[in-house]
């Protein structure tokens, strides 16, 4: 009488197994694509014409958009380090997003700012701006004081005020390499008309020596949790994004460091204020808007402009971050679901979006089911010993192989090369992360999934204040 149930369980096992094989096979395809793309870009970036790009004025000018909310302790140092970036022509637009601490006052005191005016195109709606501040001694700095409206709203205000053709979103708490703007500009110089967005690499700063807003010495984190994230970031950027960039299906440019054509962003309607994953949503929206208008465009990921970010070192904070990311991803996928499998959206609709659906939505679900179901089946003796072994080999051995593969790419790409013993530490991290951290991560993704489903039901009840054009 248990026969039908056992058959169903066997079927589920087989599906999980098949998907696992598919998933791993496509990871290997990515790895190969990423390797090819990296070879190409390393060759191009080898001794880039940084010199001539710095001295000549054929680069586009950039507006850096820096949203700041309650960052009074760090904001001054961060702005100083941004102003010291090596680039011929840029401005720094800091937006104080209605901080409740003394973020604005600190900026005004330390940079001796006074009230200024700037005519501004109201291309994207946002909350009211209370005032603009500047100082002729820092001609590149403009500080915007606005009512609180969240990160996307702050970015939108900054985009309106920006005067330069390229805007670059930057997290106020991350650190840029001094030459990263020049390196990220390269695709725009090569394809000035079609290039609309360029993303750089984000790496984990924990363990590195940071001085005056610059990374002086690169070291992998000495704590477990940041070390795992370090490997994870390398894998996400050096395998996934390189491969997608190669396939013209790049769907994420990190909010911590991405360059966009201002006009394209405005045409797409700016950052969405109703999602938690505004950085991904913007990129998807850009793809959508360009495809629907039938304009030829390109987006590219360049591995060597590097932005350093402080990774959470407690489980609690990390959990909050990961569930939020998952929610953002699902919201974006749901909002733009008509692009899924739709050939009129090109590689993004056919490869990029389905890939997210398969590996970031369904993948964790199946993997977690497998962890429970397969040992259970093993215990009650429904499964063959060989199946059991093959499943765990696929999960763990290949998992290790892929994590190590991203280190391999990191070692190839690095214009900051790592010391042998640091590389060894990262390798250890790549092996160990498969036992525990990976499962935890999947669990958080499921939590994000659950939160998303719960929010969906109460969609209409979400309070939404009207925007004032200000």
């Amino acid at each position, binding site marked *: 009488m248990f026969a039908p149930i056992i058959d169903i369980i066997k079927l589920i096992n087989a599906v999980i197994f098949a998907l696992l094989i598919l998933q791993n096979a496509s990871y290997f395809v990515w790895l190969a694509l990423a390797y090819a793309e990296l070879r190409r870009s390393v060759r191009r970036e080898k001794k880039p014409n940084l*010199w001539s790009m*710095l*001295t000549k004025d054929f680069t586009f000018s950039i507006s850096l958009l820096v949203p700041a909310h309650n960052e009074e302790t760090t904001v001054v140092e961060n702005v*100083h380090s941004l102003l*010291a970036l*090596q680039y*011929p022509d840029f401005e720094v637009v800091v937006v104080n997003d209605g901080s409740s601490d003394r973020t604005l006052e600190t900026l005004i005191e330390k940079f001796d700012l006074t009230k200024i005016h700037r005519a501004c195109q109201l291309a994207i709606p946002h909350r009211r701006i209370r005032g603009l501040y500047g100082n002729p001694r820092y*001609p590149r700095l403009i500080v915007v004081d606005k009512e609180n409206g969240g990160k996307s709203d702050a970015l939108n205000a900054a985009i309106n005020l920006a005067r330069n053709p390229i805007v670059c979103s930057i997290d106020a708490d991350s650190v840029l390499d*001094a030459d990263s703007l020049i390196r990220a500009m390269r695709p725009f110089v090569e394809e000035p008309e079609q290039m609309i967005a360029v993303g750089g690499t984000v790496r984990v700063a924990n363990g590195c020596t940071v*001085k*005056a807003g*610059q990374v*002086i010495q690169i070291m992998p984190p000495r704590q477990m949790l940041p070390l795992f994230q370090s490997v994870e970031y390398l894998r996400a950027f050096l395998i996934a994004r390189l491969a997608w960039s190669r396939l013209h299906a790049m769907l994420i440019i990190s909010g911590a460091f991405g360059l966009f054509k201002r006009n394209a962003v405005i045409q797409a309607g700016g950052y969405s204020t109703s999602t938690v994953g505004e950085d991904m949503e913007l990129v998807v929206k850009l793809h959508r808007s360009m495809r629907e208008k039938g304009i030829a465009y390109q987006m590219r990921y360049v591995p060597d402009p590097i932005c350093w970010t402080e990774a959470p070192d407690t489980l609690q904070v990390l959990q909050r971050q990961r569930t939020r990311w998952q929610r953002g991803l699902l919201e974006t996928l749901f909002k733009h679901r008509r692009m899924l499998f739709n050939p009129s959206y090109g590689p993004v609709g056919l490869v990029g979006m389905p890939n997210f659906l398969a590996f970031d939505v369904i993948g964790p679900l199946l993997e977690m089911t497998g962890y429970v179901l397969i040992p259970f089946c093993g215990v009650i003796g429904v499964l063959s010993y060989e199946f059991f072994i093959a499943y765990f080999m696929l999960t763990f051995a290949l998992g290790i192989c892929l994590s190590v593969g991203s280190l391999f790419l990191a070692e190839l790409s690095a214009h900051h090369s790592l010391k042998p013993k640091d590389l060894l530490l990262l390798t250890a991290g790549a092996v160990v992360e498969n036992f525990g951290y990976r499962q935890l991560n999947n669990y958080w993704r499921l939590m994000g999934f659950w939160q998303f489903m719960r929010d969906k039901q109460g969609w209409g009840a979400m309070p939404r204040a009207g925007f004032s054009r200000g």
Partner: protein
Amino acid sequence: MADILVAEDDPLMLRMIEFKLKQHGFLVRKATNGEEALNLARAEKPALILLDGMMPIMDGFETLRRLKESPDLRAIPVVMLTLKGSEQDIVYSLNLGAADYIVKPFHPGELIARIRKILTPPSSGREDPLRRSQIA
């Protein structure tokens, strides 16, 4: 002999400038970033400071500003030697109190001549002929 503090992050350039300065009999102290330069300046009180514009940790322009803000260091003449040649950068530096501004690529001989000129005190007896003719 006068000692000169050179702050430059490019090791090749630092070595070349050091060689040139030593050849002309100067004593050379080296720093590879602005912060180091500031600390060395405080400790050693050099006769002149040569600053590269773009350096890690603290760039030359910020170093210049801090030097000129500090009461006991502001008297030391500072020469900027940098890739940034825009009018804005030059005016900014000279307004802050830089003694001279040299744009890279530069001529090493010219660098030495300018440093010499700054370090040689204007002899009191001689009058500037141009000045006099203007007054007359």
